[in-house]
Protein backbone atom coordinates (compact mmCIF):
# COMPACT_ATOMS: atom_id res chain seq x y z
CA UNK A 1 0.00 0.00 0.00
CA UNK A 2 1.27 3.46 -0.84
CA UNK A 3 -0.93 5.18 1.72
CA UNK A 4 -2.61 3.67 4.74
CA UNK A 5 -4.47 5.23 7.65
CA UNK A 6 -5.76 3.41 10.70
CA UNK A 7 -8.32 4.87 13.10
CA UNK A 8 -7.49 8.33 11.82
CA UNK A 9 -9.09 10.90 14.11
CA UNK A 10 -9.26 14.63 14.47
CA UNK A 11 -11.61 16.61 16.66
CA UNK A 12 -11.98 20.39 16.71
CA UNK A 13 -13.42 21.03 20.13
CA UNK A 14 -16.43 18.73 20.25
CA UNK A 15 -16.66 18.36 16.50
CA UNK A 16 -15.26 15.12 15.13
CA UNK A 17 -14.01 16.32 11.75
CA UNK A 18 -12.48 12.93 11.01
CA UNK A 19 -13.67 9.94 12.97
CA UNK A 20 -11.82 6.60 12.94
CA UNK A 21 -11.15 6.49 9.23
CA UNK A 22 -9.34 3.44 7.86
CA UNK A 23 -8.07 4.07 4.38
CA UNK A 24 -5.87 2.12 2.00
CA UNK A 25 -4.54 3.15 -1.37
CA UNK A 26 -2.37 0.94 -3.61
CA UNK A 27 0.09 2.35 -6.12
CA UNK A 28 -1.15 3.64 -9.48
CA UNK A 29 -4.75 3.98 -8.44
CA UNK A 30 -6.88 7.06 -9.02
CA UNK A 31 -9.07 7.44 -5.96
CA UNK A 32 -11.95 9.85 -5.61
CA UNK A 33 -13.11 11.26 -2.28
CA UNK A 34 -16.60 12.67 -2.16
CA UNK A 35 -18.92 13.82 0.58
CA UNK A 36 -21.18 16.73 1.48
CA UNK A 37 -19.78 20.10 2.57
CA UNK A 38 -18.04 19.88 5.92
CA UNK A 39 -17.82 16.10 5.82
CA UNK A 40 -14.08 16.17 6.52
CA UNK A 41 -12.51 15.73 3.08
CA UNK A 42 -10.05 18.62 3.34
CA UNK A 43 -9.34 17.71 6.95
CA UNK A 44 -8.37 14.23 5.76
CA UNK A 45 -5.83 15.78 3.37
CA UNK A 46 -4.52 18.10 6.06
CA UNK A 47 -3.97 15.18 8.41
CA UNK A 48 -2.24 12.99 5.87
CA UNK A 49 0.01 15.80 4.61
CA UNK A 50 0.97 16.81 8.16
CA UNK A 51 -0.70 20.22 8.23
CA UNK A 52 -2.79 19.08 11.19
CA UNK A 53 -1.62 16.77 13.94
CA UNK A 54 -3.93 13.77 14.22
CA UNK A 55 -5.46 12.87 17.58
CA UNK A 56 -3.78 10.14 19.69
CA UNK A 57 -4.51 6.60 18.53
CA UNK A 58 -4.31 7.51 14.85
CA UNK A 59 -1.83 5.94 12.47
CA UNK A 60 -0.71 7.08 9.03
CA UNK A 61 1.73 5.24 6.81
CA UNK A 62 3.10 6.47 3.50
CA UNK A 63 5.34 4.39 1.25
CA UNK A 64 6.44 2.27 4.18
CA UNK A 65 7.14 5.18 6.53
CA UNK A 66 5.17 5.99 9.66
CA UNK A 67 4.26 9.63 9.05
CA UNK A 68 1.67 9.99 11.80
CA UNK A 69 3.50 12.79 13.55
CA UNK A 70 5.81 14.01 10.82
CA UNK A 71 5.82 17.72 9.99
CA UNK A 72 4.51 18.65 6.53
CA UNK A 73 7.90 19.29 4.94
CA UNK A 74 9.05 15.77 5.90
CA UNK A 75 5.93 14.31 4.32
CA UNK A 76 6.61 16.40 1.23
CA UNK A 77 10.19 15.16 1.10
CA UNK A 78 8.97 11.57 1.15
CA UNK A 79 7.11 12.23 -2.09
CA UNK A 80 3.61 13.17 -1.09
CA UNK A 81 2.43 16.30 -2.88
CA UNK A 82 -0.88 18.06 -2.59
CA UNK A 83 -2.85 21.06 -3.73
CA UNK A 84 -5.09 23.19 -1.57
CA UNK A 85 -8.76 24.02 -1.87
CA UNK A 86 -7.81 27.70 -1.58
CA UNK A 87 -4.90 27.20 -4.01
CA UNK A 88 -2.29 29.01 -1.90
CA UNK A 89 -0.15 29.91 -4.85
CA UNK A 90 2.74 32.30 -4.40
CA UNK A 91 1.00 35.43 -5.62
CA UNK A 92 4.00 37.73 -5.66
CA UNK A 93 6.37 35.37 -7.44
CA UNK A 94 6.76 34.68 -11.13
CA UNK A 95 4.98 31.68 -12.60
CA UNK A 96 8.27 29.90 -13.27
CA UNK A 97 9.48 30.53 -9.71
CA UNK A 98 6.22 29.09 -8.39
CA UNK A 99 6.90 25.88 -10.24
CA UNK A 100 10.62 25.84 -9.52
CA UNK A 101 10.02 26.09 -5.79
CA UNK A 102 7.99 22.90 -6.10
CA UNK A 103 11.23 21.25 -7.21
CA UNK A 104 12.94 22.20 -3.95
CA UNK A 105 13.58 18.72 -2.55
CA UNK A 106 15.26 17.57 -5.77
CA UNK A 107 17.72 20.45 -6.10
CA UNK A 108 21.09 18.71 -6.41
CA UNK A 109 23.52 21.33 -5.11
CA UNK A 110 24.47 22.11 -1.53
CA UNK A 111 23.81 25.24 0.47
CA UNK A 112 27.48 26.13 0.70
CA UNK A 113 27.87 25.98 -3.09
CA UNK A 114 25.05 28.49 -3.39
CA UNK A 115 26.59 30.84 -0.83
CA UNK A 116 29.93 31.02 -2.55
CA UNK A 117 28.23 31.15 -5.93
CA UNK A 118 30.01 28.26 -7.62
CA UNK A 119 29.58 28.13 -11.33
CA UNK A 120 28.22 24.59 -11.31
CA UNK A 121 25.07 25.65 -9.48
CA UNK A 122 24.22 28.12 -12.24
CA UNK A 123 24.53 25.30 -14.76
CA UNK A 124 22.30 23.13 -12.60
CA UNK A 125 19.81 25.96 -12.16
CA UNK A 126 19.65 26.26 -15.93
CA UNK A 127 18.83 22.57 -16.26
CA UNK A 128 16.14 22.82 -13.57
CA UNK A 129 14.63 25.83 -15.29
CA UNK A 130 14.52 24.06 -18.63
CA UNK A 131 12.83 21.07 -17.08
CA UNK A 132 10.29 23.26 -15.32
CA UNK A 133 9.62 25.19 -18.52
CA UNK A 134 8.81 21.87 -20.14
CA UNK A 135 6.33 21.14 -17.37
CA UNK A 136 4.83 24.60 -17.84
CA UNK A 137 4.34 23.99 -21.55
CA UNK A 138 2.76 20.68 -20.68
CA UNK A 139 0.03 22.46 -18.72
CA UNK A 140 -0.06 25.29 -21.28
CA UNK A 141 1.47 28.09 -19.20
CA UNK A 142 4.88 28.45 -20.86
CA UNK A 143 4.00 31.85 -22.34
CA UNK A 144 3.28 33.21 -18.87
CA UNK A 145 6.49 32.00 -17.24
CA UNK A 146 7.87 35.42 -16.31
CA UNK A 147 4.54 36.89 -15.27
CA UNK A 148 3.52 37.32 -11.67
CA UNK A 149 1.27 34.48 -10.56
CA UNK A 150 -1.28 37.04 -9.35
CA UNK A 151 -1.84 38.08 -12.97
CA UNK A 152 -3.16 34.67 -14.02
CA UNK A 153 -6.82 33.88 -14.55
CA UNK A 154 -8.70 31.52 -12.24
CA UNK A 155 -8.31 28.55 -14.57
CA UNK A 156 -4.63 29.24 -15.16
CA UNK A 157 -4.05 29.38 -11.41
CA UNK A 158 -5.49 25.90 -11.04
CA UNK A 159 -3.09 24.65 -13.71
CA UNK A 160 -0.22 26.39 -11.97
CA UNK A 161 -0.81 24.78 -8.56
CA UNK A 162 -1.08 21.48 -10.36
CA UNK A 163 2.28 22.04 -12.06
CA UNK A 164 3.85 23.17 -8.79
CA UNK A 165 2.67 20.02 -7.03
CA UNK A 166 4.03 17.78 -9.78
CA UNK A 167 7.34 19.62 -10.05
CA UNK A 168 8.82 17.60 -7.17
CA UNK A 169 8.04 14.30 -8.94
CA UNK A 170 5.81 13.00 -6.14
CA UNK A 171 4.77 9.40 -5.68
CA UNK A 172 1.33 10.44 -4.55
CA UNK A 173 -0.55 13.55 -5.60
CA UNK A 174 -3.59 14.67 -3.64
CA UNK A 175 -5.84 17.24 -5.29
CA UNK A 176 -8.40 19.19 -3.27
CA UNK A 177 -11.19 20.17 -5.64
CA UNK A 178 -8.94 20.82 -8.64
CA UNK A 179 -11.83 21.77 -10.91
CA UNK A 180 -13.84 23.98 -8.55
CA UNK A 181 -15.21 27.04 -10.28
CA UNK A 182 -14.13 26.01 -13.76
CA UNK A 183 -16.40 26.10 -16.78
CA UNK A 184 -17.28 22.67 -18.26
CA UNK A 185 -14.81 23.15 -21.14
CA UNK A 186 -12.02 23.99 -18.70
CA UNK A 187 -12.93 21.05 -16.51
CA UNK A 188 -12.48 18.75 -19.50
CA UNK A 189 -9.20 20.39 -20.38
CA UNK A 190 -7.92 20.06 -16.81
CA UNK A 191 -8.89 16.41 -16.66
CA UNK A 192 -7.16 15.68 -19.94
CA UNK A 193 -3.99 17.32 -18.71
CA UNK A 194 -4.25 15.44 -15.45
CA UNK A 195 -4.56 12.08 -17.16
CA UNK A 196 -1.59 12.82 -19.41
CA UNK A 197 0.46 13.84 -16.38
CA UNK A 198 -0.49 10.65 -14.61
CA UNK A 199 0.77 8.64 -17.55
CA UNK A 200 3.95 10.63 -17.93
CA UNK A 201 4.98 10.72 -14.29
CA UNK A 202 3.44 7.46 -13.12
CA UNK A 203 1.39 9.23 -10.47
CA UNK A 204 -0.97 7.79 -7.92
CA UNK A 205 -3.83 10.20 -7.35
CA UNK A 206 -6.43 11.11 -4.76
CA UNK A 207 -9.00 13.61 -5.97
CA UNK A 208 -11.53 15.41 -3.81
CA UNK A 209 -14.18 16.72 -6.12
CA UNK A 210 -17.68 18.09 -5.90
CA UNK A 211 -18.23 17.75 -9.62
CA UNK A 212 -19.34 14.15 -9.45
CA UNK A 213 -19.03 13.63 -13.16
CA UNK A 214 -15.27 14.12 -12.83
CA UNK A 215 -15.05 11.54 -10.08
CA UNK A 216 -17.27 9.06 -11.87
CA UNK A 217 -15.34 9.38 -15.13
CA UNK A 218 -11.78 9.29 -13.89
CA UNK A 219 -11.62 7.39 -10.62
CA UNK A 220 -11.34 3.65 -10.39
CA UNK A 221 -12.57 3.69 -6.81
CA UNK A 222 -14.42 6.20 -4.65
CA UNK A 223 -14.40 6.79 -0.89
CA UNK A 224 -17.38 8.59 0.61
CA UNK A 225 -17.14 10.63 3.80
CA UNK A 226 -20.00 11.98 5.86
CA UNK A 227 -19.70 13.72 9.23
CA UNK A 228 -16.08 12.64 9.39
CA UNK A 229 -16.83 8.97 8.88
CA UNK A 230 -16.20 6.72 5.94
CA UNK A 231 -19.66 5.60 4.94
CA UNK A 232 -18.91 3.82 1.69
CA UNK A 233 -16.14 2.74 -0.64
CA UNK A 234 -16.25 1.09 -4.02
CA UNK A 235 -16.30 1.53 -7.75
CA UNK A 236 -18.24 4.54 -9.06
CA UNK A 237 -21.16 2.34 -10.10
CA UNK A 238 -21.32 0.65 -6.70
CA UNK A 239 -21.28 4.06 -5.02
CA UNK A 240 -24.10 5.32 -7.18
CA UNK A 241 -26.36 2.58 -5.86
CA UNK A 242 -25.29 2.79 -2.22
CA UNK A 243 -28.19 3.75 0.01
CA UNK A 244 -26.01 5.38 2.67
CA UNK A 245 -24.43 7.62 0.06
CA UNK A 246 -27.74 8.63 -1.35
CA UNK A 247 -29.02 9.48 2.08
CA UNK A 248 -25.93 11.46 3.00
CA UNK A 249 -26.27 13.54 -0.10
CA UNK A 250 -29.98 14.05 -0.26
CA UNK A 251 -31.40 12.94 3.05
CA UNK A 252 -33.83 10.59 1.31
CA UNK A 253 -33.95 7.68 -1.04
CA UNK A 254 -34.56 8.28 -4.70
CA UNK A 255 -35.41 6.22 -7.69
CA UNK A 256 -32.75 5.48 -10.25
CA UNK A 257 -33.66 8.30 -12.57
CA UNK A 258 -33.47 10.98 -9.85
CA UNK A 259 -30.20 9.56 -8.67
CA UNK A 260 -28.64 9.69 -12.09
CA UNK A 261 -29.64 13.30 -12.43
CA UNK A 262 -28.26 14.24 -9.05
CA UNK A 263 -24.91 12.65 -9.73
CA UNK A 264 -24.58 14.15 -13.18
CA UNK A 265 -24.41 17.70 -11.79
Amino acid at each position, binding site marked *: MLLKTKKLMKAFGGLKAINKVDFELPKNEIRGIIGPNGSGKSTFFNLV*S*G*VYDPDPGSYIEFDGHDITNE*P*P*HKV*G*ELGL*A*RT*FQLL*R*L*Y*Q*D*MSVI*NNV*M*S*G*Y*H*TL*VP*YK*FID*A*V*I*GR*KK*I*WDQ*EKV*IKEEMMELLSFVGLADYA*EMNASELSGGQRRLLVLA*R*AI*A*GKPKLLMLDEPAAGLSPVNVDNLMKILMRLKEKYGLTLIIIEHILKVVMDTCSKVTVLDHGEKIAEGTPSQIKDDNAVIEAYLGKKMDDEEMRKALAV
Partner: protein
Amino acid sequence: MEKFKDIIRQYPFLGFIIAFFILMAIPSIFFTDLYQSHLSSLIFINIIVAAGLNIVKGYCGQVTVGHVGLYAVGSYTAGCMFMYLGASLWITLPVAILVTGLFGVAFAIPSFRLEGPYLALATLGGGEAIRLFIENGEFFGSTYGISSISQPELFGITFDTPDKYYYISMPIMLIAIYFSFSVLRSSIGRAFMAVREDPISAAASGINVKKHKMLAFILSAMFAGAAGAVYAHLPPGYIHPNNYTVIEMVTFLAMVVFGGLGHIWGGIIGAVIITIVYDLTRPLYEYQLFIFGLTIVLTILFMPKGIGGFIDKYFIDRRFKKKQGVASK
Protein backbone atom coordinates in the same frame (compact mmCIF):
# COMPACT_ATOMS: atom_id res chain seq x y z
CA MET B 1 26.07 43.44 -26.01
CA GLU B 2 24.04 40.25 -25.82
CA LYS B 3 27.22 38.23 -25.80
CA PHE B 4 28.59 40.38 -22.99
CA LYS B 5 25.43 39.77 -20.96
CA ASP B 6 25.77 36.03 -21.51
CA ILE B 7 29.34 36.05 -20.26
CA ILE B 8 28.31 37.96 -17.12
CA ARG B 9 25.50 35.52 -16.55
CA GLN B 10 27.91 32.59 -16.87
CA TYR B 11 30.54 34.08 -14.59
CA PRO B 12 28.68 36.37 -12.19
CA PHE B 13 31.80 37.42 -10.32
CA LEU B 14 33.14 39.06 -13.50
CA GLY B 15 30.52 41.77 -13.09
CA PHE B 16 31.78 42.39 -9.59
CA ILE B 17 35.36 42.66 -10.74
CA ILE B 18 34.31 45.27 -13.29
CA ALA B 19 32.33 47.13 -10.61
CA PHE B 20 35.40 46.96 -8.38
CA PHE B 21 37.61 48.70 -10.91
CA ILE B 22 35.03 51.36 -11.65
CA LEU B 23 34.56 52.08 -7.94
CA MET B 24 38.36 52.12 -7.51
CA ALA B 25 38.61 54.90 -10.05
CA ILE B 26 35.75 57.05 -8.83
CA PRO B 27 37.43 58.91 -5.93
CA SER B 28 40.37 60.14 -7.98
CA ILE B 29 38.07 61.34 -10.74
CA PHE B 30 35.18 62.87 -8.82
CA PHE B 31 35.98 63.43 -5.16
CA THR B 32 37.08 66.87 -4.04
CA ASP B 33 37.18 66.49 -0.26
CA LEU B 34 37.53 63.88 2.46
CA TYR B 35 33.91 64.14 3.44
CA GLN B 36 32.81 62.59 0.16
CA SER B 37 34.96 59.57 0.91
CA HIS B 38 33.53 59.38 4.40
CA LEU B 39 29.99 59.54 3.09
CA SER B 40 30.80 56.86 0.50
CA SER B 41 31.97 54.53 3.26
CA LEU B 42 28.74 55.18 5.15
CA ILE B 43 26.81 54.36 1.98
CA PHE B 44 28.75 51.10 1.54
CA ILE B 45 28.12 50.15 5.16
CA ASN B 46 24.42 50.84 4.79
CA ILE B 47 24.31 48.86 1.55
CA ILE B 48 25.62 45.85 3.49
CA VAL B 49 22.93 46.30 6.15
CA ALA B 50 20.24 46.78 3.50
CA ALA B 51 21.38 43.68 1.59
CA GLY B 52 21.06 41.66 4.79
CA LEU B 53 17.74 43.16 5.78
CA ASN B 54 16.46 42.40 2.31
CA ILE B 55 17.18 38.71 2.86
CA VAL B 56 15.12 38.38 6.01
CA LYS B 57 12.43 40.93 5.31
CA GLY B 58 12.27 41.33 1.54
CA TYR B 59 12.78 37.69 0.61
CA CYS B 60 11.76 35.68 3.65
CA GLY B 61 8.99 38.11 4.66
CA GLN B 62 9.88 38.22 8.35
CA VAL B 63 9.16 41.61 9.87
CA THR B 64 12.16 42.55 11.97
CA VAL B 65 12.55 45.91 13.63
CA GLY B 66 15.50 44.88 15.76
CA HIS B 67 18.14 44.80 13.09
CA VAL B 68 19.87 47.88 14.43
CA GLY B 69 20.56 45.81 17.56
CA LEU B 70 22.42 43.25 15.45
CA TYR B 71 24.34 46.07 13.78
CA ALA B 72 25.28 47.23 17.29
CA VAL B 73 26.43 43.72 18.19
CA GLY B 74 28.76 43.79 15.17
CA SER B 75 30.12 47.21 16.10
CA TYR B 76 30.63 46.42 19.75
CA THR B 77 32.18 43.04 19.08
CA ALA B 78 34.74 44.88 16.99
CA GLY B 79 35.01 47.79 19.44
CA CYS B 80 35.53 45.58 22.49
CA MET B 81 37.99 43.32 20.72
CA PHE B 82 39.99 46.39 19.87
CA MET B 83 39.69 47.90 23.35
CA TYR B 84 40.67 44.76 25.26
CA LEU B 85 42.81 42.85 22.78
CA GLY B 86 44.02 45.52 20.39
CA ALA B 87 42.62 43.47 17.51
CA SER B 88 42.48 44.93 14.00
CA LEU B 89 39.60 44.85 11.52
CA TRP B 90 41.01 41.71 9.90
CA ILE B 91 40.35 39.82 13.14
CA THR B 92 37.31 41.71 14.41
CA LEU B 93 35.43 41.45 11.09
CA PRO B 94 35.15 37.66 10.94
CA VAL B 95 34.54 37.41 14.69
CA ALA B 96 31.84 40.10 14.53
CA ILE B 97 30.18 38.22 11.66
CA LEU B 98 30.13 34.98 13.67
CA VAL B 99 28.99 36.55 16.94
CA THR B 100 26.22 38.51 15.23
CA GLY B 101 25.16 35.37 13.40
CA LEU B 102 24.64 33.73 16.80
CA PHE B 103 22.51 36.65 17.89
CA GLY B 104 20.55 36.12 14.68
CA VAL B 105 19.53 32.72 16.05
CA ALA B 106 17.97 34.43 19.06
CA PHE B 107 16.08 36.80 16.78
CA ALA B 108 14.81 33.94 14.64
CA ILE B 109 13.19 31.99 17.45
CA PRO B 110 10.23 34.38 17.97
CA SER B 111 9.51 34.13 14.22
CA PHE B 112 8.57 30.46 14.67
CA ARG B 113 5.47 31.46 16.57
CA LEU B 114 4.85 35.13 15.84
CA GLU B 115 3.95 37.01 12.70
CA GLY B 116 3.58 40.56 11.44
CA PRO B 117 3.15 43.22 14.12
CA TYR B 118 3.75 40.78 16.98
CA LEU B 119 7.05 39.69 15.51
CA ALA B 120 7.89 43.35 14.93
CA LEU B 121 7.30 44.08 18.60
CA ALA B 122 9.38 41.13 19.75
CA THR B 123 12.33 42.09 17.54
CA LEU B 124 12.00 45.77 18.45
CA GLY B 125 12.26 44.74 22.09
CA GLY B 126 15.34 42.63 21.28
CA GLY B 127 17.06 45.49 19.46
CA GLU B 128 16.36 48.04 22.19
CA ALA B 129 17.43 45.58 24.89
CA ILE B 130 20.81 45.23 23.21
CA ARG B 131 21.26 49.00 23.08
CA LEU B 132 20.25 49.48 26.71
CA PHE B 133 22.52 46.64 27.76
CA ILE B 134 25.45 48.33 26.03
CA GLU B 135 24.55 51.75 27.37
CA ASN B 136 24.50 50.50 30.94
CA GLY B 137 27.53 48.24 30.72
CA GLU B 138 30.88 49.56 31.98
CA PHE B 139 32.48 46.80 29.92
CA PHE B 140 31.13 48.36 26.72
CA GLY B 141 32.19 51.88 27.60
CA SER B 142 28.59 52.69 28.61
CA THR B 143 27.58 56.22 27.60
CA TYR B 144 31.16 57.24 26.83
CA GLY B 145 31.26 54.93 23.86
CA ILE B 146 34.48 53.46 22.54
CA SER B 147 36.92 55.75 20.77
CA SER B 148 40.09 55.63 18.68
CA ILE B 149 39.33 52.20 17.30
CA SER B 150 42.23 51.34 15.03
CA GLN B 151 42.22 51.30 11.25
CA PRO B 152 43.42 48.26 9.37
CA GLU B 153 46.75 47.89 7.64
CA LEU B 154 47.41 46.10 4.41
CA PHE B 155 50.47 46.00 2.14
CA GLY B 156 52.18 48.41 4.52
CA ILE B 157 49.45 51.02 4.14
CA THR B 158 47.39 52.14 7.14
CA PHE B 159 43.89 53.00 6.02
CA ASP B 160 43.49 55.69 8.64
CA THR B 161 41.85 58.51 6.71
CA PRO B 162 38.42 58.57 5.06
CA ASP B 163 39.88 58.62 1.55
CA LYS B 164 41.92 55.51 2.31
CA TYR B 165 39.18 53.72 4.26
CA TYR B 166 37.03 53.96 1.12
CA TYR B 167 39.21 51.19 -0.31
CA ILE B 168 38.39 48.98 2.70
CA SER B 169 34.65 49.52 2.90
CA MET B 170 34.09 49.33 -0.87
CA PRO B 171 35.45 45.80 -1.54
CA ILE B 172 33.78 44.45 1.59
CA MET B 173 30.50 45.87 0.31
CA LEU B 174 31.01 44.22 -3.08
CA ILE B 175 31.76 40.86 -1.49
CA ALA B 176 28.63 41.18 0.65
CA ILE B 177 26.47 41.93 -2.39
CA TYR B 178 28.05 39.05 -4.23
CA PHE B 179 27.10 36.66 -1.43
CA SER B 180 23.58 37.99 -1.23
CA PHE B 181 23.19 37.55 -4.99
CA SER B 182 24.52 34.01 -4.89
CA VAL B 183 22.20 32.96 -2.11
CA LEU B 184 19.08 34.74 -3.29
CA ARG B 185 19.36 33.64 -6.92
CA SER B 186 19.61 29.99 -5.88
CA SER B 187 16.97 27.55 -4.66
CA ILE B 188 17.46 29.02 -1.19
CA GLY B 189 16.24 32.43 -2.30
CA ARG B 190 13.24 30.76 -3.92
CA ALA B 191 12.52 28.87 -0.72
CA PHE B 192 12.72 32.15 1.24
CA MET B 193 10.14 33.69 -1.08
CA ALA B 194 7.90 30.65 -0.82
CA VAL B 195 8.02 30.94 2.98
CA ARG B 196 7.11 34.61 2.68
CA GLU B 197 4.24 34.00 0.28
CA ASP B 198 2.69 30.98 1.94
CA PRO B 199 4.44 28.91 4.60
CA ILE B 200 1.82 26.16 4.43
CA SER B 201 2.23 25.45 0.75
CA ALA B 202 5.98 25.92 1.06
CA ALA B 203 6.01 23.11 3.61
CA ALA B 204 3.86 20.99 1.32
CA SER B 205 6.62 21.32 -1.29
CA GLY B 206 9.10 19.90 1.21
CA ILE B 207 10.54 23.25 2.26
CA ASN B 208 11.49 23.29 5.94
CA VAL B 209 9.93 26.58 6.99
CA LYS B 210 11.63 26.92 10.38
CA LYS B 211 15.02 26.06 8.95
CA HIS B 212 14.70 28.69 6.25
CA LYS B 213 13.48 31.36 8.65
CA MET B 214 16.46 30.57 10.85
CA LEU B 215 18.79 30.68 7.88
CA ALA B 216 17.41 34.04 6.75
CA PHE B 217 17.82 35.55 10.20
CA ILE B 218 21.35 34.22 10.61
CA LEU B 219 22.47 35.36 7.14
CA SER B 220 20.99 38.81 7.55
CA ALA B 221 22.50 39.09 11.04
CA MET B 222 25.90 38.24 9.57
CA PHE B 223 25.53 41.07 7.08
CA ALA B 224 24.57 43.45 9.89
CA GLY B 225 27.55 42.21 11.92
CA ALA B 226 29.95 42.82 9.04
CA ALA B 227 28.53 46.30 8.49
CA GLY B 228 28.75 47.04 12.22
CA ALA B 229 32.41 46.06 12.35
CA VAL B 230 33.30 48.11 9.28
CA TYR B 231 31.48 51.04 10.89
CA ALA B 232 33.36 50.64 14.20
CA HIS B 233 36.73 50.91 12.47
CA LEU B 234 35.63 53.79 10.22
CA PRO B 235 37.91 56.77 10.94
CA PRO B 236 37.94 58.27 13.55
CA GLY B 237 36.89 54.90 15.01
CA TYR B 238 34.24 56.04 17.43
CA ILE B 239 31.06 54.21 18.43
CA HIS B 240 28.38 55.30 20.85
CA PRO B 241 25.02 53.75 21.88
CA ASN B 242 23.28 56.73 20.30
CA ASN B 243 24.28 55.46 16.85
CA TYR B 244 22.02 52.45 17.31
CA THR B 245 18.61 53.87 18.10
CA VAL B 246 15.18 53.55 16.59
CA ILE B 247 16.04 56.38 14.20
CA GLU B 248 18.80 54.29 12.63
CA MET B 249 16.43 51.34 12.51
CA VAL B 250 13.85 53.40 10.68
CA THR B 251 16.44 54.57 8.15
CA PHE B 252 17.48 50.96 7.53
CA LEU B 253 13.87 50.02 6.97
CA ALA B 254 13.36 53.05 4.74
CA MET B 255 16.24 51.84 2.55
CA VAL B 256 14.72 48.44 1.84
CA VAL B 257 11.12 49.63 1.64
CA PHE B 258 11.92 52.61 -0.60
CA GLY B 259 14.29 50.47 -2.65
CA GLY B 260 11.70 47.74 -3.02
CA LEU B 261 11.28 44.76 -0.69
CA GLY B 262 12.66 41.61 -2.20
CA HIS B 263 14.58 43.43 -4.91
CA ILE B 264 18.37 43.20 -4.63
CA TRP B 265 19.28 46.20 -6.81
CA GLY B 266 16.41 48.27 -5.46
CA GLY B 267 17.68 47.78 -1.91
CA ILE B 268 21.13 48.96 -2.94
CA ILE B 269 19.80 52.06 -4.67
CA GLY B 270 17.57 52.69 -1.65
CA ALA B 271 20.61 52.51 0.63
CA VAL B 272 22.47 55.07 -1.50
CA ILE B 273 19.60 57.54 -1.64
CA ILE B 274 18.50 57.24 1.98
CA THR B 275 22.07 57.53 3.30
CA ILE B 276 22.57 60.75 1.35
CA VAL B 277 19.23 62.16 2.51
CA TYR B 278 20.02 61.10 6.08
CA ASP B 279 23.28 62.96 5.85
CA LEU B 280 21.74 66.09 4.37
CA THR B 281 19.05 66.18 7.06
CA ARG B 282 21.49 65.72 9.92
CA PRO B 283 20.95 69.36 11.06
CA LEU B 284 17.25 68.51 11.40
CA TYR B 285 18.04 65.72 13.84
CA GLU B 286 14.75 65.88 15.69
CA TYR B 287 12.74 65.53 12.47
CA GLN B 288 14.62 62.58 10.99
CA LEU B 289 12.41 59.94 12.55
CA PHE B 290 9.44 61.78 11.10
CA ILE B 291 11.03 62.17 7.66
CA PHE B 292 11.98 58.52 7.26
CA GLY B 293 8.85 57.23 8.92
CA LEU B 294 6.83 59.25 6.45
CA THR B 295 8.99 57.99 3.57
CA ILE B 296 8.13 54.42 4.56
CA VAL B 297 4.41 55.14 4.88
CA LEU B 298 4.20 57.04 1.58
CA THR B 299 6.22 54.38 -0.23
CA ILE B 300 3.99 51.60 1.03
CA LEU B 301 0.88 53.59 0.10
CA PHE B 302 1.86 54.90 -3.31
CA MET B 303 4.60 52.64 -4.68
CA PRO B 304 4.49 49.42 -2.69
CA LYS B 305 7.22 47.85 -4.82
CA GLY B 306 9.56 50.79 -4.38
CA ILE B 307 12.26 51.65 -6.88
CA GLY B 308 12.76 47.97 -7.62
CA GLY B 309 9.21 47.88 -8.95
CA PHE B 310 10.09 50.51 -11.53
CA ILE B 311 13.26 48.67 -12.51
CA ASP B 312 11.35 45.44 -13.03
CA LYS B 313 8.61 47.17 -14.94
CA TYR B 314 11.15 48.79 -17.24
CA PHE B 315 12.88 45.51 -18.02
CA ILE B 316 9.69 43.52 -18.38
CA ASP B 317 8.22 46.14 -20.69
CA ARG B 318 11.38 46.09 -22.76
CA ARG B 319 11.46 42.32 -22.95
CA PHE B 320 7.79 42.35 -23.90
CA LYS B 321 8.40 44.90 -26.66
CA LYS B 322 11.32 42.88 -27.93
CA LYS B 323 9.12 39.79 -28.10
CA GLN B 324 6.43 41.71 -29.95
CA GLY B 325 9.09 43.07 -32.29
CA VAL B 326 10.20 39.56 -33.11
CA ALA B 327 6.61 38.43 -33.59
CA SER B 328 5.81 41.23 -36.02
CA LYS B 329 8.82 40.51 -38.22
